[in-house]
């Protein structure tokens, strides 16, 4: 490996790491926002939980989305005979999306890193191999998934909160109903998390039946433990909703943790997906359809996320605690659980969706079930605008950077 090439690889690694830090800082509110808002978690606890679970999610389940981002939208076979073009193009896409996201964050615009990476890839495809290498069907599917994921999260949250409302909040004895229903909800949460870990984790190669079996056992065990813990639990307060919300606080933290986990799994690819591609090309000199993502790279992405969460993310979370004050654990749980499920399903399908937009959809879903006092729906306009703007601008930036590299070399 030449000296220039290794310098290049170090720069690529650095940009990947920088993006991971950025993603961690910007997105930590998605998982922990409602828990901090409802005062179930302190800022410090939320930050530590988010950092640990993002890291675990990235390292254990992170590889699925990585594949799609790289091989889905642009066809790598167009670069089979030009590995250097692929390397510099991937580099330009990384830098382009990183600059776009950093600028938007500075301007306080609600853009998604995931979407910016897709935009960068398209710019890269257009400038290097031309229009033909872009997989239009795949692109349409990806863009549709951006629309569908908040919608799906919203519908799920609406249904879940409607059930909580019917069975618990509107029961004549809300606390007793909570004790009855909580173990089932705990079962559901652990089922979703275990399935997502065991079904497609690269490090734990389980067969379908084995994965489902082990997930059911873990979920069932957790449900039983929850049932026994609740048996002797007595409400101390006279107000009948206070103990209900207190119990739901535990569920809210659990589901917030699954969002953090899902976020790590989903979003680490945005940071290190292209890094993996560049490294593979540099090591083997060939561009192939499937590139294994080394665990050390996933772990590096996970560490980047965690660092971002602990540094700038800390300040973001503090703002959240001041600004979101009117959410209670029953609402927070419904929104977070629905978002986690949506993100994990989409990660499994390899769809690069935005965690931020999914959680926004879920919270709106709870709002439509008359669960939240005041929602500022004006934000939807901003989000839709960001969908329209992100791809072209990130693509253009990538094209400029690529031209710049060509010019200098």
């Amino acid at each position, binding site marked *: 490996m030449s000296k220039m090439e290794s310098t290049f690889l170090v720069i690529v690694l650095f940009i990947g790491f920088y993006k991971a830090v950025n993603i961690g800082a910007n997105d930590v*509110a*998605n998982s922990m*926002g409602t828990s901090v808002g409802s005062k179930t978690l302190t800022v410090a606890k939320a930050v530590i939980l988010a950092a640990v679970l993002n890291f675990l999610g990235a390292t254990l389940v992170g590889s699925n989305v990585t594949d799609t981002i790289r091989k889905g939208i642009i066809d790598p076979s167009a670069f089979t005979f030009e590995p250097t073009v692929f390397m510099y193009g991937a580099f330009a896409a990384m830098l382009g999306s990183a600059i776009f996201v950093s600028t938007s964050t500075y301007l306080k615009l609600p853009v998604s890193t995931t979407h910016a990476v897709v935009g960068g890839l398209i710019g890269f495809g257009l400038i290097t191999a031309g229009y033909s290498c872009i997989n239009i069907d795949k692109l349409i599917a990806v863009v549709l998934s951006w629309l569908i994921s908040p919608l799906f999260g919203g519908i799920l949250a609406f249904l879940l909160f409607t059930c909580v409302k019917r069975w618990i909040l*509107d029961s004549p004895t809300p606390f007793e109903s909570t004790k009855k229903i909580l173990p089932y909800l705990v079962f559901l949460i652990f089922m979703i998390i275990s399935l997502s870990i065991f079904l497609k984790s690269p490090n734990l190669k389980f067969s379908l039946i084995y994965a489902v079996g082990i997930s059911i056992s873990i979920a069932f065990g957790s449900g039983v433990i929850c049932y026994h813990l609740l048996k002797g639990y007595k409400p101390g307060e006279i107000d009948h909703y206070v103990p209900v919300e207190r119990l739901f606080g535990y569920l809210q933290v659990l589901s917030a943790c699954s969002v953090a986990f899902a976020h790590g799994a989903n979003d680490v690819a945005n940071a290190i997906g292209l890094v993996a591609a560049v490294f593979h090309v540099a090591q083997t000199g060939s561009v192939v359809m499937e590139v294994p993502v080394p665990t050390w790279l996933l772990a590096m992405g996970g560490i980047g996320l965690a660092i971002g969460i602990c540094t700038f993310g800390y300040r973001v979370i503090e703002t959240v605690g001041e*600004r979101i004050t009117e959410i209670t654990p029953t609402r927070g749980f419904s929104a977070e659980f629905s978002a986690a499920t949506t993100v994990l399903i989409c990660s499994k399908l390899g769809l690069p969706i935005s965690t931020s937009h999914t959680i*926004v959809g879920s919270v709106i879903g709870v709002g439509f079930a*008359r669960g939240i*006092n*005041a929602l500022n729906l004006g934000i939807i306009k901003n989000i839709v605008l960001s969908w329209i703007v992100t791809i072209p601008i990130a693509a253009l930036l990538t094209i400029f950077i690529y031209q710049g590299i060509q010019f200098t070399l």
Partner: protein
Amino acid sequence: MAYIPPLVKLFGKSPFKPLHEHILKVNECVNQLKPLIEAFVDQDFKKVNEIAERISKLEHEADIIKNNIREHLPKTLFMPVDRCDILMFLKEQDTIADRAEDLARMLEVRETKLPVELKEDVLKFTNKVIETVNALEVAAGELSEVIESSFGKHEISKVLKLIHNIDKKEWEADKLVLKLLRKLFEVENKLDPISVLHLERLIHTMDSVADHAENAGDRLRTMVARR
């Protein structure tokens, strides 16, 4: 200033807490009618003026809360209840304090003599009007429970019962108005015509305090009832 994620921007400022502060203020204002009318019955006009100032101050404070709610209620705000219902409820609630202030001002501007025959019924009537507004305050206070239950039917039926109580008190107040007016016109020859007219207007203004409490209750009903 840290980056503000879309999730945070999604949460708007809820009007329900200030709405509760508003009814507490209005209720406090109306509660002052008791010492006000007692002073009037005793013909202690120095005290009447003092209490009238207090009422006026409370009314002004309620106005500030009201304006604050209105300023923070953009059309894009999505709430579990209709925005119009909230604004109408607020308006009725605010008129209660306005009428209480009107009454205090009317007592301030003319030292009208109160015939002995009316004294007891005036006090009774005042208490009933205050009870009507107090009943509204209790019903409106339960709104937070309705919201907490996300508009569960148990909590809604509790509030509907409390609103029914407002209607009952208002109806009783209406009956007292009739009795009072009859008594007033029975003794009209003992009084000068201006005093009769002034007393008549005082009774009607007092009655409209209860009327607006009933209207606010109606608005509360449309707010909590299932859409």
